[in-house]
């Protein structure tokens, strides 16, 4: 009887020891994110999940984050927000109060980033996001949100510049935009830029976010004789738009989409129909920057493609940059205090990443620009500013492909 009790006591001691060992494990910095694993935004949401994981693994491989001499590993905590803004905000609050994460990573899409950033502000914990470009995220004086995507309003500027360089220059432009914060910003910016550059905006139409029926909008653009059509929307909408353009036999000289063309998923869903479609991006696989976590862009592209089986796009790169900024800021601050980290992030200056140099404006948004892409032969190529690939303009008719 006595030996049984002794054995039990020793066993429980060992168990307690074992647990305390795991508790003692390495020092850990928890990064939390509620993001679209499923739902309407999941095609792009998943890109961020891959990137966050890829970058965090690299940081930990490199030895982790050095905070005043102590080494910390990054740990990611995820929740699926099903692409719903209210749910996402609720999950962010959970990440902070229940999972006790140290810092936050953004969700995907401006419409979800806004409610998330409000929670971050309420709890005074910094959030770095790579998935929201609308200025509406940054113009409310929220000091706790930082974004690595450049201003939505500027997205189509380079496309319009590209058009001015074509001969003959098209005159009539159609601008279609979804009614969410991001696309409204893109649409407004595109219209202003187009008028500034002397184009005639013949169609300027809003469509419902998540809409699957573009018959009305396409009919209008066709009828107005638009030579170039710019569509601001997210990937799901973009795919539908292209499919229905084919159904209604609509093929302008240039069809430019904001989100979609850069993603492998878009090309897979549309197959051959994706060819000749134009897109915009804040980054392309053609670039080559010296990196912070990876040697340079090209090395990153190769390693990423090897690991995940698809070529990364600007969403992926923006996500990598977010993690890079955290490592840099935390090491500069030499502390884990949210306030100090927030200040350190704001002071990020010319941080060299595979995404490009990172500098934040006073309002927290990155200073950046966009390039024009075109899908040629099933691959995404940067066509403007010139990078060695010739654009095909005008796009061939549907039955000539």
């Amino acid at each position, binding site marked *: 009887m006595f030996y049984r009790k002794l054995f039990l006591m020793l066993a429980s001691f060992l168990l307690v020891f074992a647990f305390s060992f795991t508790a003692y494990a390495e020092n850990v910095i928890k990064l939390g994110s509620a993001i679209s694993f499923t739902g309407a935004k999941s095609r792009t949401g998943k890109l961020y999940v891959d990137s966050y994981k890829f970058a965090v693994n690299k940081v930990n491989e490199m030895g982790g984050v050095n905070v005043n001499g102590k080494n910390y590993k990054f740990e990611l905590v995820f929740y699926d927000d099903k692409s719903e*803004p*209210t749910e996402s*905000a609720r999950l962010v*609050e*959970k990440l902070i*109060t*229940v999972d006790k994460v140290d810092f936050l990573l953004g969700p995907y899409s401006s*419409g979800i980033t*806004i*409610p998330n950033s*409000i929670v971050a*502000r*309420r*709890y005074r914990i910094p959030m770095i996001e790579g998935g929201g470009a609308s200025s*509406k995220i940054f113009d*409310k004086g929220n000091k706790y949100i930082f974004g690595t995507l450049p201003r939505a309003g500027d997205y189509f500027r380079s496309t319009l510049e590209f058009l001015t360089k074509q001969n003959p220059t098209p005159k009539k432009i159609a601008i279609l935009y979804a*009614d*969410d*914060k991001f696309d*409204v910003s893109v649409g407004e910016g595109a219209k202003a830029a187009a008028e500034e550059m002397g184009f005639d905006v013949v169609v300027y139409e*809003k469509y*419902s*976010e998540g809409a699957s029926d573009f018959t009305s909008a396409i009919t209008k653009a066709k009828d107005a004789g638009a030579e170039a059509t710019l569509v601001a929307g997210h990937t799901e909408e973009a795919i539908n738009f292209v499919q229905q353009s084919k159904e209604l036999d609509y093929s302008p000289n240039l069809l430019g989409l904001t989100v979609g063309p850069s993603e492998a998923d878009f090309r897979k869903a549309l197959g051959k129909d994706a060819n000749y479609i134009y897109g915009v991006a804040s980054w392309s696989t053609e670039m080559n920057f010296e990196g912070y976590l990876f040697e340079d862009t090209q090395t990153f592209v190769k390693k990423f493609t090897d690991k995940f089986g698809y070529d990364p796009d600007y969403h992926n790169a923006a996500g990598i940059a977010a993690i890079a900024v955290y490592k840099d800021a935390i090491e500069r601050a030499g502390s884990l205090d949210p306030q100090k980290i927030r200040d350190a992030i704001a002071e990020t200056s010319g941080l060299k990443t595979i995404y490009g140099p990172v500098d934040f404006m006073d309002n927290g948004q990155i200073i950046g620009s966009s390039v024009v892409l075109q899908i040629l032969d099933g691959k995404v190529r940067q066509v403007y500013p010139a990078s060695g690939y010739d654009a095909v303009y005008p796009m061939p008719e549907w039955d000539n492909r």
Partner: protein
Amino acid sequence: MKGTLIGFALIIIIGVLVPFTAGNFAIRLATDIVIFAILASSWNIIGGYTGYASFGNIVFFGVGAYATAVLMSKAGLGFYPALILSGLIAGLYGFAIGFPILRLKGHYFAIATLGLAEATKALVQNLGLTEGNSGMYLPMPEMGIDASYMFFYFNALGILLILLVIMYFILNTKLGYGFVAIREDEDAADSIGINTTIFKSISFGLSGLFTGMAGSVYAYQQGFIKPEPVFIVTKTVKMIVMAVFGGVGSLFGPVIGAVSIELIANYLSEHFLVIHTIFFGTIIILAVIFAPKGIMDIITARKKIGLSYFLENIRKNRV
């Protein structure tokens, strides 16, 4: 009378104690519960007492939320003025639209209210004033995190108490008798001189007033609102389920219903991450089949409660 006093006392005591015995996440849950209690009790005015089952009451929640957003962000009003004005706007909306809509009965009325909610949502989605579908910011409350949790909780609780007290008094006046008379036999009510048209509109307007105020609190709490979540049909269903579950046509029934359903739903979502919504749907189905008169009926019924009670309910309703 005595029962009512006990009811009020319980609500006040429990209501005041909760935030001081629980952490922030629990206060947040309690606030959600109180807001649902307001929604269910407001629905009860038009659906329970007056007998017009509105399936679009969420419209007032959305109107209240957006009115507050516009008044605070664009007109620079403070929260309390915005709260009261939003309630009045929602209430007036209900009162006015009540005239044409409350002429319909039964199914047609239910669908009309559904259509009203959707049409109002679509209107908000296309108005520049409400920034269309992209959403509106509200100003941030100037207080610390803990203080803000308390703020929203007590505001919601206060609105609920005011609602219940007002209803208690109304029920003992001609207005209240009128509501019930309309529910029991509208033609008879008409013939004994009750102006059913006005009474119905007042009922709908009151329902809208408090629902609108709940929407106002919600909007300020969220800090950023979009049309879909504040006009969502499933919230109307939830408030009706709560009223039915707790006991339609009784003062505290909907409150009990709100508390129980929300606690059950929260428990389920904590422990059954993936399938809690499925359980919820199942519970609705079972509750509706076996206990359509709600918990209050079980509490106040003098007859013996046993298996026969539930079977009796089924037998009565079968074809």
